[in-house]
């Protein structure tokens, strides 16, 4: 548990040393989402219609931006070997890295989402749903992403290959997440979407750290 906290703390510290990383992920999110109102025009009805999809795709892509850094730097300088050789459970350490990634690339999106939503003229209820959906969904994105990051460790062109591997896995999250917001904006029931998102999160939490840890070990061998 201490080691888990230590690794989260360390990763956050490293990010803070290079502030550009947090900022680029956030900035990217903002740019992608603000591009659409710019490109499509001020047709509010249209904007409101595409808002959930656009926001979720942007969230997904900005999560992706930070992903290749999750293990790559530690792999290149040999730290990852040291982590494998740590007496603590390596799976816990991997979970720590995932949590750190979410804190840097996921949480800020959740907090920023209302601002973006207002740009798309979403109503207050939809904004709340949007935030809640992101809160449930972005951890799943970080978790699944870690599998891709681990599998492509040390593989050249890893970042692009990684996107190819995990974007298909992201699609359920995208569909349920955007679906929830859309349903709420047209006044439909949203519990179904949320229970599915929750189920995804629980499933991912249960299996992914373990899968990623084995993938990293395979990469190091």
């Amino acid at each position: 548990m201490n080691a888990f906290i230590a690794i989260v703390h360390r990763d956050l510290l490293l990010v803070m040393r290079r502030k550009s990383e947090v900022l680029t992920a956030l900035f990217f999110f903002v740019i992608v989402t603000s591009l659409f109102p710019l490109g499509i025009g001020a047709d509010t009805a249209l904007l409101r219609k595409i808002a959930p999809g656009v926001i979720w795709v942007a969230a997904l892509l900005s999560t992706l931006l930070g992903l290749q850094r999750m293990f790559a730097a530690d792999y290149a300088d040999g730290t990852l070997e040291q982590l494998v050789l740590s007496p603590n459970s390596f799976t816990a350490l991997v979970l720590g890295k995932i949590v750190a990634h979410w804190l840097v690339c996921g949480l800020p999106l959740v907090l920023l989402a209302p601002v973006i939503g207002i740009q798309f003229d979403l109503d207050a209820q939809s904004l709340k749903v949007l935030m809640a959906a992101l809160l449930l969904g972005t951890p799943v994105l970080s978790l699944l992403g870690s599998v891709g990051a681990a599998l492509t460790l040390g593989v050249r062109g890893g970042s692009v290959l990684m996107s190819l591997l995990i974007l298909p896995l992201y699609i359920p999250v995208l569909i349920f997440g955007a679906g929830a917001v859309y349903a709420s904006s047209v006044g439909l029931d949203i519990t179904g979407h949320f229970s599915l998102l929750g189920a995804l999160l629980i499933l991912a939490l249960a299996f992914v750290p373990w899968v990623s840890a084995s993938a990293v070990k395979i990469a190091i061998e």
Partner: protein
Amino acid sequence: MTTTNSSFPASTTAALEARNITCVRGERTLFSGLDLELFVGQCLHIRGENGVGKTSLLRLLTGLASPDCGEVLWYGQPIKKQESEYHSKLLFLGHRDALKEDLSAIENLRMYAAIDGITLSEQDAFASLWRFGLKGREDLPVNCLSAGQKKRVLMARMLTRRAQLWILDEPFNALDTHAVGELQALIVEHLQGNGLVVLTSHQSLAISGLRVLDL
């Protein structure tokens, strides 16, 4: 060897043992049928020309890679069966320095202590850095340090890690002559405390009771 001096239990069986291990890289068999026994208080110096398989052997001993045949034992038990137990006794330093370039020496040390589950007071951390001549460089990010200074941070880690078994891959590289002497002293100290050391080096060492394995 006095018991007060020794921080780890002595034993009559070999602490680290490799049985009949074989290492294949690509289509090349680096070594096969290698046997190895190391007792508490012993230091093993693995020698051999470049590319003969020293690093590969060390990685097998740590469990990072698994041998294509044979097994590695720690106090008679296969290391695969007691990973966390073995890892808590083990310190491996490879060719790469495994330091975070953006963090300072002291932050690197304390981070590793936390990850390895060791309580390391700030004072101890500083003391270990000072011992190896890093006074005044504790708070520089590691990428500002010179090659030898980075290695010295690793020496400080050896001191603070409190592992029984040290596996070191060419630890003397990039160190100046004074630091080489200091590291050897550190190793001797560790051996006297019932530690074990396996290392590779192309230089000859001045450690008494050194065992040599020529690959």
